[in-house]
C-alpha cells in the first residue's frame, strides 16, 4: 500500500470536503486552503472505518444525465403533490408497494431510496434486512405493476448501469 493511499484513503471524499470547506468560508486564501486540506485529510482518516467500500462510478456522463432526470422529476413531483393538496375534491388512493430490488450494493440502494422519496408521490418506507426489497408508500396509486416498472426503468436501471456493470 502506497503512502498516498494510506494518508488519503478516499480521495473523492477528501476532494468533496475541501470544496465544501472552501465554499463555506468563501475564500481561497492560503490559510483557508491549508485548513481545508487538513480537514479533508483528517476527517476521512477518523471516519473511514465506518464507510462501506464505495463502488466506482463507471459512467460519469450517465450520472450527470441521471441527476438531471431526477431534478426534473422533483419539479414534476412538487407540482403533482401540490395539485393533489390544493384540490381536495379529488380523493387520492394511497397504497403500499413492495418493490423487489435488483441492485445489491448498499450505496446504490441508498441512492435509489432517496431518489424514490424525492420523486413523484412515493416515499420509501422500509428496507428489508437482507436488502431484497424496499417498501414504498404511494400517495396516489393506480396500478402497482406499472409503478414498479416505471421505477425500474427510470431509476434503478440507470443506477445499476452507473455503479454496477
Amino acid at each position, binding site marked *: 500500500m502506497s503512502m498516498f493511499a494510506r494518508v488519503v484513503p478516499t480521495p473523492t471524499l477528501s476532494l468533496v470536503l475541501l470544496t465544501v470547506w472552501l*465554499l463555506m468560508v468563501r475564500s481561497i486564501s492560503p490559510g483557508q486552503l491549508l485548513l481545508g486540506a487538513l480537514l479533508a485529510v483528517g476527517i476521512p482518516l477518523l471516519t473511514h472505518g465506518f464507510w462501506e467500500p464505495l463502488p466506482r462510478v463507471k459512467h460519469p456522463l450517465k450520472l450527470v444525465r441521471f441527476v438531471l432526470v431526477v431534478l426534473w422529476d*422533483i419539479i414534476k413531483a412538487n407540482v403533482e403533490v*401540490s395539485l393533489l393538496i390544493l384540490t381536495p375534491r379529488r380523493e387520492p*388512493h394511497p397504497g403500499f*408497494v413492495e418493490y423487489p430490488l435488483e441492485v445489491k450494493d448498499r450505496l446504490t440502494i441508498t441512492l435509489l431510496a*432517496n431518489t424514490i422519496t424525492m420523486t413523484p408521490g412515493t416515499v420509501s418506507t422500509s428496507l428489508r434486512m437482507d436488502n431484497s426489497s424496499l*417498501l414504498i408508500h404511494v400517495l396516489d396509486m393506480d396500478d*402497482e405493476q406499472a409503478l414498479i416498472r416505471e421505477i425500474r426503468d427510470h431509476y434503478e436501471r440507470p443506477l445499476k448501469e452507473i455503479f454496477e456493470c
Partner: protein
Amino acid sequence: MTFFVIAEGVIAFLLVAGGIFAFTGSLGMLQFKDFFMRLHGPTKGTTLGIGCVLIASMLYFTITQREFHVQELLITLFLFISAPVTGHMLAKTGLHMHLRFITGTRGSTPEFRDEDVGQSRVARPAKARHPWKTRRQRKRPVLPR
C-alpha cells in the same frame, strides 16, 4: 437596465413559487388523512420550496454584489441528503409503531419479517477498525437463511 428588470422578475417569481411550494407542502400535513400520506408534503414540497428561495438568494446576491455566491448550494446539498433520510426513518418508525392508515390503502400490506423487528439473527456490521494501523479486507457477512 432591462437586464435588471428581467433579473428582478425572475427573482420575484422564484421567491413567490418557493413560498407557494413550501406553503402547500405544509398544508398537506393538514389536508391528508394518515401519517404516511402526511409524510409526502414535507419531503417534497418543502424541498423544492426552499430550493427556489435559495436559487433566488444566489441570483440576487450575485447580481447586486457582483461576485459569485454559491454557498447556498451547500444548503441545498445538505437538504437533499437529509430530507429523504428523515422521511425514511419517520416512515419506518411509523410502521414499527403500527400507526393506522386510512381504509382503502391498496397494494401489499406492510409486514415485517422476523429479522426486520429483531427477533432472529441478523448480519452485524463489521467491527470498526483503527484508522491507520489495520488494513484488513472486510468480508460482507452472509445472512442466515
